[in-house]
């Protein structure tokens, strides 16, 4: 679609959408949000870019093939599920690592649920973009 307004607006919107998608991803641990919805919002940014500037530019902006993103996400999620095996827990059990934790404080909490959610984020982002970009190119 050749529209100057859309192209200019997309430049700002895409950035906002991507930041918002990360916010949703991180917020998802204790509040509404998470990898799935985050991935959907993140995909919207690239879809908007594809509509405004064409699929070739959207693919260039992605740098990697969307299928590769999806499969990487699947691998990340799978590994996150397998980590608890080392401590003898059930598949998908949440394992926590507190970086720089001092007495009383939690430092920077890192966990396998976050890793799993990141995997879901990438799977959704990659899968949606695979479908939408392919359909956009067909038409």
């Amino acid at each position, binding site marked *: 679609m050749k529209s100057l307004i859309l192209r200019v607006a997309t430049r700002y919107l895409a950035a906002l959408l991507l930041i918002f998608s990360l916010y949703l991803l991180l917020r998802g641990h204790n509040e509404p949000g998470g990898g799935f919805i985050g991935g959907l919002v993140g995909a919207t940014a690239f879809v908007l870019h594809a509509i405004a500037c064409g699929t070739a530019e959207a693919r260039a902006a992605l740098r990697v093939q969307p299928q590769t993103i999806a*499969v990487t996400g*699947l691998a990340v999620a*799978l590994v996150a*599920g397998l980590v608890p095996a080392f401590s003898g827990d*059930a*598949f*998908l059990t*949440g394992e926590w690592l507190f970086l720089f934790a001092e007495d009383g404080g939690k430092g920077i909490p890192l966990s396998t649920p976050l890793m799993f959610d990141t995997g879901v984020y990438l799977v959704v982002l990659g899968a949606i973009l695979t479908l939408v970009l392919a359909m956009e190119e067909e038409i």
Partner: protein
Amino acid sequence: MSWILVTPLLVPFATAIAAFLLRHRPAGAWISVAGSAAALAASIVLLTAVLQQGVVAGQMGGWPAPFGITLVADRLSAVMVVITAITGLAVALYATAEVTERMRYLGFHALFQVLLAGVTGAFLTGDIFNLYVWFEVMLISSFGLLILGGRPAQIDGGIKYVTINLISTIFFLSATGLLYGMTGSLNMADLSQLIPRVENQGLITVVAMMFMVAFGIKAAVFPLFFWLPASYHTPAFSVSAVFAGLLTKVGVYALIRVFTLIFDHDTGYTHTVLLWVACLTMVTGVLGAAAQMDFRKILSFHIISQIGYMILGLALLTPLALAGAVFYLVHHIIVKANLFLVAGVAERLTGSTALGRIGGLYTHAPLLALLFLIPAFSLAGFPPLSGFWAKYVLVKASLDIEHWIAAAVALAVGLLTIFSMTKIWGEAFWPPHPDGVEPKLSRLTRAERWRLLTPIAALATMTVIIGLFPQPFITFAEGAAAQLLDKTAYVDAVLGAQE
């Protein structure tokens, strides 16, 4: 304990990743074969555990039931997982010879493995919402497989397939929401305890009927089956074999699970509906097949009529009838997947699947003719093949409770099945090819012959073995039926497994 439940799921996912990474090379196809073999081993470990310990349940993530993610395997689930892995391995090997380089590059094997993971997940989950998620995993991957190759007929079939499945999804999700609103739980074992305590039992029956529609679409029962013959004849033969073998059976499994574990409060209503659905499904499927003149379309309609038999077993709800349904599921998956694989070889040799335009297979490829006859006769219910025992058990179960109509329909449909099979035989195998082509197996390369015929021969051998030694299989199915009817073992395994 929980890891033996989850490995049959993890292996296909891991294989999908590996197959995707190797999609540029022929090795990608072999990774899929190796992964399927590993999945088969994992599923056999699970089946052995179920046979030794009864129902096996585990809580993923360590959260106790009914809040966490529950995986459960009783005999029915475990045997379905094994048969999924067997079909997966057979089709993965077949696909090494059928799938083109381009399809491999587009991710055929990764999608195929994700589909197997979805099917396995649906069989193992103990939670109705997770069942929905696995259905979606199956739907997305099967849509990908269906349109891979991008011929217009495939897109046409794929759109019909997805549209009707989305309607099923809407029913499924709405019913799940209503159920959650009424009971506050989605864990199936927990639901079976909570349902009798709901005040408004009429509303429960409404929800039950919504589940029946949702799963009925997936299982392709009368009158919701129209998507199946519209889409199954279009994709690659490997794809239609695994669809024909497994996908509708997940719907049947879900019906059996839900209508034995959760909705058994008003069987006079729900199971009578199921009974008429079963009879009409058998009859319309087989009559639809009689009108077709395409190898794969005939087989597609026969899936529908066979689904009717399994639903019949569920509808009668006696121990013997349920055992018959379980036996039928196992027998049918092997036979049906095999017939589609045979159709694929026949197409390669003769150039088409339209029955009017092919022929000469009996004279020039007698081995293939034999390998067709075994599953075809088994499907129709000839002794001593597996289909005979499957039908025998179901007919006996109907006669035992003096349900003459069901027994008569089951027998008549068996007869009409023979008619369709002889039609394929009489058009594709018996007469000479109309264009004078000699469809010899030597038209394939040596490697192709091995990869295409080994899975067919292995599945045919299983059909014969089940037919000649049915007793252990029937005993197993009776055990599975007993577990389905007596819910305590299932419920205790799930709600008791809290550690």
